């Protein structure tokens, strides 16, 4: 999911810099499909997280515990808000998402071209914020792995061996 998120972020950035072309239209459609898929996955993940308690955090100073839980909350909020904001952009532009060229998703807003640009700016700003948080999140995880030598990082990554 993290990989798909980075990939769709990159796709979104490159498509926004393209001139209008059939390829751009296709890439935009792929970007929307991926975004809607991520929205479904993050929703499942949120439900899962609310039902099942995550394992207790590794021992760390209190300020780090609090920062970590704020960080996790912010990451979830953004992972949810970003695809929704993108959906709002395409709704305001009057271009429904035809998921996988098969299903037309409902429009969240009636067509209103004056709202499309401001909403797009919100979508971009949320992405900027997510990018910053992801950088901090990754740096913190690396710090725990390399400096503190605890299992914070490996427990996020299912294929690594547990550290003792």
């Amino acid at each position, binding site marked *: 999911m993290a990989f798909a998120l980075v990939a769709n972020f990159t796709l979104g950035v490159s498509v926004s810099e393209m001139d209008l072309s*059939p390829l751009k239209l296709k890439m935009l459609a792929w970007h929307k499909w991926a975004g809607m898929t991520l929205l479904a996955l993050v929703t499942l993940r949120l439900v899962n997280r609310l039902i099942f308690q995550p394992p207790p955090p590794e021992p760390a100073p209190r300020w780090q515990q609090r920062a970590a839980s704020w960080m996790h909350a912010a990451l979830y909020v953004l992972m949810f808000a970003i695809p929704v904001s993108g959906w709002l952009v395409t709704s305001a532009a009057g271009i429904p998402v035809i998921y996988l060229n098969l299903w037309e998703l409902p429009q969240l807003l009636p067509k209103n*071209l004056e709202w499309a640009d401001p909403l797009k700016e919100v979508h971009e700003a949320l992405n900027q914020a997510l990018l910053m948080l992801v950088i901090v999140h990754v740096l913190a995880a690396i710090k725990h792995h390399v400096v503190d030598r605890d299992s914070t990082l490996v427990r996020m990554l299912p294929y690594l061996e547990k550290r003792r």
Partner: protein
Amino acid sequence: MKKRIACLLVVASLVPALATAGNWSIDDARSKIGFQYQAMGATLDGEFPQYMADIELDPAKPDQAQITLDVTTAKTDAGNPDATAEVGSPLFFDSRRYPTARFASSRIQPQGNGRFLVEGKLSVKGITRPAGIPVMLKTEGKNQRLTGTFKLNRLDYRIGEGMWADTSALANEVKVAFSLLLVPKPSRKTP
């Protein structure tokens, strides 16, 4: 002197006839020529907000009517700002070389109940092809309402050349729908 005045009168009477032919004008505020197309499966609504018509019509003999309609291609609203910015470009309407798209009727076949098939020629981007447009004519007080829809393939008129010939991104079929309110011209009697 008399001769001069007579001469002026003749010229003056000719001027309006030259400026706009036909015995009906279109009430722009209550008329619309719209179109629908599909980009990546999503339907978008566009409009041709600027057009001019020459309509010679006797409501008692509608099959004798003569209709010519010119649409200003550069003014096309493609329903999306990026598309509107692109639609006058050489790949689409090439509005600099072909400022107008024209439909000119040649034959009108009555089909009953106020319905007619208007046959004629549609010229877009230097390409002229025969076209048959089903229309409906309805009396609204002193006015006449002319409505109709038809489909065309944009590639028949090279609307969207080069990379835009790719119909998997931009569908070939375009649906045109119009509703025109014809108002009798005051300068001439309508029969």
